């Protein structure tokens, strides 16, 4: 088992390295940040001085070497626009994004599994069909458009919830969290629901098809033949089996929630790192883009690692194979 973990960690570093190379090459090789940063009427001398101060006059591989060495120390360069360390800028915004993603995933899981179970147990009932129709719709609705509709209905028409911003936050160990204030919750609800919708549809589908598949299995029939209550057959025998793929997917999809929060954050003006990324892309603020990408890639690699370990913990068959390996 430790060997297995070690190998996975090495693999993860590999992915990180390749991604850093790709990201750097792409971001630094194409486009010219000087055009954006320096007054177009500046002299060639001014341009050269600005380029030198930003290190842009060096050959690419020198730039990358410096970039990598600095990255190891957590220094991904200063933002061209804000003039402060790019990584710090991103990390500052991380809690807001994580908060949004976690609440969205909780909504998706806590609603999705029961709804999916119901639809799987009663596929021909009108409720089961309605749940499935809802999930097909949830798949078809583009996230950004749902965001607009939420704002239109709940913020503009009904005036129940605020349409933008994060509201008041409370500090825990220097990290601002919305979840601790009522106002924070009011601000969080719409964006979280928006972000959750797609995952909710996914979890409903997954749970439903898993349930239907499990119900056909002999072990379910055997469990019923043992005289177990429906609650136990569904709640233990079926659920424990379908939970394995669901946990895997939930884990892997958490990363995509962070990526998709770019959309939700830009609609609801949620001050997370997705919005920062978007601004940085349009302003050609490369260090911030690079810092975002590397941070997200690191998060992904970590999530993948955790999911692998969780999977092994949940499925006795994998656990055994892992122990043998």
């Amino acid at each position, binding site marked *: 088992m430790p060997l297995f973990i070690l190998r996975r960690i090495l693999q993860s570093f590999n992915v990180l390295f390749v991604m850093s190379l790709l990201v750097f090459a792409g971001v630094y090789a194409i486009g010219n940040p000087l055009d954006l940063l320096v007054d177009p009427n500046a002299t060639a001398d001014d341009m050269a001085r600005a380029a030198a101060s930003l290190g842009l006059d060096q050959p690419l591989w020198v730039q990358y070497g410096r970039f990598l060495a600095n990255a190891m120390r957590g220094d991904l360069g200063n933002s061209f626009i804000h003039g402060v360390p790019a990584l710090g800028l991103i990390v500052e915004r991380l809690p807001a994004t994580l908060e949004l993603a976690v609440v969205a995933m909780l909504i998706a899981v806590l609603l999705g599994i029961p709804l999916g179970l119901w639809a799987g147990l009663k596929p021909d009932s009108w409720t089961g069909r309605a749940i499935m129709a809802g999930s097909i719709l949830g798949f078809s*609705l583009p996230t950004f458009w749902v965001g607009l509709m939420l704002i*239109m209905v709940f913020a503009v028409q009904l005036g129940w919830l605020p349409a933008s911003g994060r509201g008041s936050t409370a500090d825990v160990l220097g990290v601002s969290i919305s979840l601790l204030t009522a106002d924070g919750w009011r601000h969080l609800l719409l964006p979280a629901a928006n972000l959750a919708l797609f995952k909710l549809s996914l979890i409903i589908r997954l749970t439903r098809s898993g349930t239907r598949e499990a119900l056909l299995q002999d072990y379910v029939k055997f469990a019923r033949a043992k005289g177990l209550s429906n609650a136990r057959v569904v709640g233990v025998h079926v659920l424990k089996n379908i939970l394995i793929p669901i946990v895997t997917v939930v884990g892997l999809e958490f990363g995509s929630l962070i990526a*998709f929060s770019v*959309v939700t954050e830009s609609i609801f003006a949620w001050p997370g790192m997705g919005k920062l990324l978007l601004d940085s892309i349009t302003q050609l603020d490369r260090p911030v883009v690079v810092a975002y990408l590397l941070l997200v890639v690191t998060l992904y690699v970590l999530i993948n690692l955790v999911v692998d370990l969780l999977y092994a913990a949940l499925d006795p068959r994998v656990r055994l194979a892992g122990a043998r390996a």
Partner: protein
Amino acid sequence: MSETSPPPATSPAEADVERPLRRLVRMYAESRVALFGLALLLAIVLAALLAPWLAPQNPYDLIQLDMLDGRLPPGSASGDGRLTYLLGTDEQGRDMLSAILYGLRISVGVGVVATLLALAIGMALGLAAGYFGGRFDAILMRIADIQLSFPSILVAMILLALFGQGIDKIVIALVAAQWAYYARTTRSAALVEGRKEYIEAARLLGLSTPRILFRHLLPNCLPPLIVVAALQVAAAIALEATLSFLGLGLPVTEPSLGLLIANGFQYLYSGRYWISVFPGVALLLLILAINLVADQLRDVLNPRLQSQ
């Protein structure tokens, strides 16, 4: 069950083309929802293709626009009384219905072209990987795995951040974000089919590799690919709309549905919902129709369900 005759050397796809096709059509037609989806899809695509003839005005011919007609609610008459703005107008006095029809053209076009390109590239790579195996297969699938572990919106965003805007750029970004799905699907189908007896028979008959690949292996890999492609067209259209909405995708000169929605966003707060809601509804119907068709195709083409 006693099978006495040896399995025929022709591939199942070549023999008996007419009857399975008819059966598929019948199975597809069993679902009324799926038929509705197909009708809706055909209607939308037709409307998009015929936009120049269907649209009340050319929304991008500035001479036809009247700034005085700006932000009129649905059903208003134009200032000169010559036409009625069924779905209202935007801030420049542009008829929303016309803008949507033209926008659909761009959205559908970009989605379909990107999907076909990604399909062609992914299919070729996947087929080769599945048939030849070895190092090429291992490396290709490793790349696909890494890429698929990141959501396509992230991949596309990175590429657009690098390339900048433009219709060609977004097609490249969409293809780059989606080729791996096809490569994966084709490879696994090719692996399964490649082990079957008819491929072995074709090899023994001394058929050339390209002939085996394209005449025998490929047709039998098609069903899962069709399903994936159908779902991915919807994904591509949604992705393009999202990117354009964020201001990363198409330039203002190519106003797809996503861009129209983004334009109307600011007016949402003042209750002028039509500028962004109607393009959104059009986008939703388009994606929904494709998904309904794709869902039924998956059921119809799924060999596991066919036997039941």
